[in-house]
C-alpha cells in the first residue's frame, strides 16, 4: 500500500485506520474482518481500551496477530460469520477486503447482523485517472489497485455512488464517509479525487443515534 503512515506508540498506522479508530467508541467491542497482522486491533486495544477480535485466513498474518496479543479467529470470510452471534459486537470492520470477496452482499448482511455499526473501506474505482486510463484503452493500475487485470484479486470494484446504492438496498444507513488520496484525506469531490473510501453505516433495526 502506498498510503503514508502515522507513528503511534512506535507502531505505523495508516491514516484510514486512524480514521476508522476515530469512529469506534472507547471500551466497545470490535470485530475486524480480515484483520491482517492485527495492527488496527492492537491500536484500538492500546489507545481506546477496545475489546477486539479479528478474523483472518492467512497463516502468517494469524501468527503476526497472535504475536501482538490480538485475538484472532482463523477462518475464510467467504464462509460467513456463523461463529458470531447477532449483535455480538458494537462495531465490525471490513478494511480493504470487500472488493476481493465473492459474496459481497452476503458479507455486508452478515456484518449488519453481528454488529450495530459497520465500517467498510475499499479502493475507489471512480478515481479520475482510472477514467483516463480506460479512455487510453487500458485497465487502470494505480497505487491503491496495483494489479494487472489478469492477476488482480479485486473482483468487485465499485465507485462511491455504487456502494451507496448497495448500502441503501441492504438497509444500511450511512453515517460517515471519509475518503483518502495517498496519505491525505479528501473532502472536495471525493468521488473523483479519492483512491480509497471508508464508510461507516448503522445496521438495520437499530433505534439509537448514529452519529
Amino acid at each position, binding site marked *: 500500500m502506498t498510503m503514508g503512515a502515522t507513528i503511534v506508540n512506535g507502531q505505523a498506522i495508516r491514516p484510514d485506520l486512524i480514521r476508522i479508530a476515530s469512529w469506534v467508541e472507547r471500551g466497545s467491542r470490535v470485530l475486524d474482518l480480515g484483520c491482517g497482522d492485527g495492527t488496527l486491533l492492537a491500536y484500538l486495544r492500546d489507545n481506546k481500551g477496545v475489546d477486539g477480535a479479528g478474523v483472518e485466513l492467512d497463516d502468517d498474518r494469524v501468527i503476526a496477530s*497472535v504475536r501482538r496479543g490480538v*485475538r484472532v*479467529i482463523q477462518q475464510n470470510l467467504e464462509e460467513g460469520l456463523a461463529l458470531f*452471534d447477532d449483535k*455480538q459486537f458494537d462495531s465490525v470492520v471490513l478494511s480493504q477486503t470487500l472488493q476481493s470477496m465473492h459474496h459481497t452482499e452476503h458479507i455486508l448482511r452478515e456484518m449488519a447482523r453481528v454488529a450495530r455499526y459497520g465500517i467498510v473501506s475499499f479502493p475507489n474505482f471512480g478515481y479520475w485517472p482510472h477514467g483516463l486510463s480506460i479512455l487510453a484503452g487500458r485497465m487502470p493500475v494505480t497505487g491503491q489497485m496495483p494489479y494487472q487485470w489478469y492477476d488482480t484479486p479485486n473482483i468487485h470494484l465499485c465507485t462511491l455512488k455504487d456502494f451507496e446504492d448497495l448500502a441503501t438496498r441492504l438497509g444500511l444507513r450511512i453515517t460517515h464517509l471519509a475518503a483518502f488520496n495517498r496519505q491525505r484525506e479528501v473532502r472536495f469531490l471525493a468521488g473523483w479525487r479519492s483512491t480509497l473510501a471508508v464508510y461507516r453505516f448503522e445496521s438495520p433495526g437499530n433505534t439509537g443515534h448514529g452519529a
Partner: protein
Amino acid sequence: MVSLSTSLEQSAPRDGDPTVMPPVVPQGSVGVVSPEFIAFDEPLTLASGQVLPSYELAVETYGTLNADRSNAVLVCHALNASHHVAGISASNPKDIGWWDNMVGPGKAVDTNRFFVIGVNNIGSCFGSTGPASINPATGKPWGAAFPMLTVQDWVQAQARLADYFGIRKFAAVMGGSLGGMQALGWAISCPDRVDHCIVIASTPRLSAQNIAFNEVARRAILTDPDFHGGDYYAYDTVPRRGLSVARMLGHITYLSDDDMAAKFGRAQRAPAENGEYHYGYDVEFEVESYLRYQGEKFSSYFDANTYLLITRALDYFDPARHCDGDLAQALSDARAEFLVVSFTTDWRFPPSRSREIVSALLKSRAPVTYAEIDAPNGHDAFLQEDRRYHSVVQGYFDQIAARLALGERTMTNGVLA
C-alpha cells in the same frame, strides 16, 4: 546437535561406571529427566460415585517455579502418553518425551521462563495408580475392580497436584486431543485456577463415529481369551492380540488418508516374483506391516485395562451434558483466555469440532484465539513439527509471559530455531 554439559552433570548422576556414556543432550532439550512419585492419601470421590482411597501420581517437572508461583504450566496427556513430556528419560536414553518438540529451553513452551508439569493420570500405566497397581484392600492388582474414570476425575486429581506444588493458578493448562479435553475441563471446573487454556486437536464431545471406533477397540480387548475379565495379571498373561488390534484401529484414526497414501500407498512389503501378490493373508502391503508392528509394539508396554478405561473416559466427556447440550452455557463460568488449534486433515477431531468450542466461547464472551493449521498429518499433527503450528503456540506463550512479566525470550530452539 550441541551437548549441554551443565544440565547433563546436574541431572544424570552415574555410579562411577566409566563405561556408561551419558546421552548427548541436544540444544533445546530439558536434559535427562526422572519422574517423582507423589502420594495422595485423601480419598478421591469420582464422578461414578466410587472412591479411590489413595493414589500416587508420576510427575515430571521442567524449569523453575518462580517465587510467586505464577509461571506454572500443566501439560495434560492423551490416550497413550504419560508424564514424560520432554527430555531424555534417565532410565532409558532412547525414551524422549512425547512433546519434546514443544517443551524445552527456548522452545514454544519455554522452560527458561515457565515451570512445566507433566503428570501421568490415574488409571494409566506409566507409574501413576492404575488397574495394574496393587489394591490395598486385597493386596492384589486392581484389575477389573479399578474404578471407572472421567476427564473430570483427572482434573480433580491434577488440582490436588497443583495444591501440592502450592500453585494457586496455572499460567496455562494445555493439551492435545484428550489432553485438550482436560484443559477444557480445568477452565470449566476450576475457573479461578487457569489463566490460559490451550485446547489442541480436541472436541467438546465424541461423535457417534468416535464412540464406535472406541467400542470396536474395546471389543477386541474384551473378547481376547487372555483378558480373563480384566484380571489377566493373576494368570500371568496379557490380552496382547486384542490390545494390538485396538491399537491398529486407533492408529488408523490418527493418520489422514493423504498421509497414509504418501507413506505407504499400495506398496507391497515383499512381493513375490515379478512383483506378484502372494495370494494369502500374511502381510502383503506395507501399510499392513506398519500397523501390525505398531500394534505389537504397543501391546508390549501398554496395559489393556488402561486402554479400556481411557477410551471410556473419552466417550463420557461431554461438559455440555448438564446444560442441555449448550456448550456456551457450560463455559459461561470460565475465566481463562483460550487458544484453540485444529488441523485441517484431522478427521478424528476435525476443525468443525474445534469451531464448536470456538463458537461457544465467543457466545459466552470468553477471549479466544483460533488457528486452523493446514497440516497433512491428520490427528497426529498435534505432535508434529509444523512451523505454523509452533509459531502460533510460541507467539501465544510469549504473550502469556509478557502479561505475567516473566521476561523476554532469550533464545529460540526446536522447530522454529
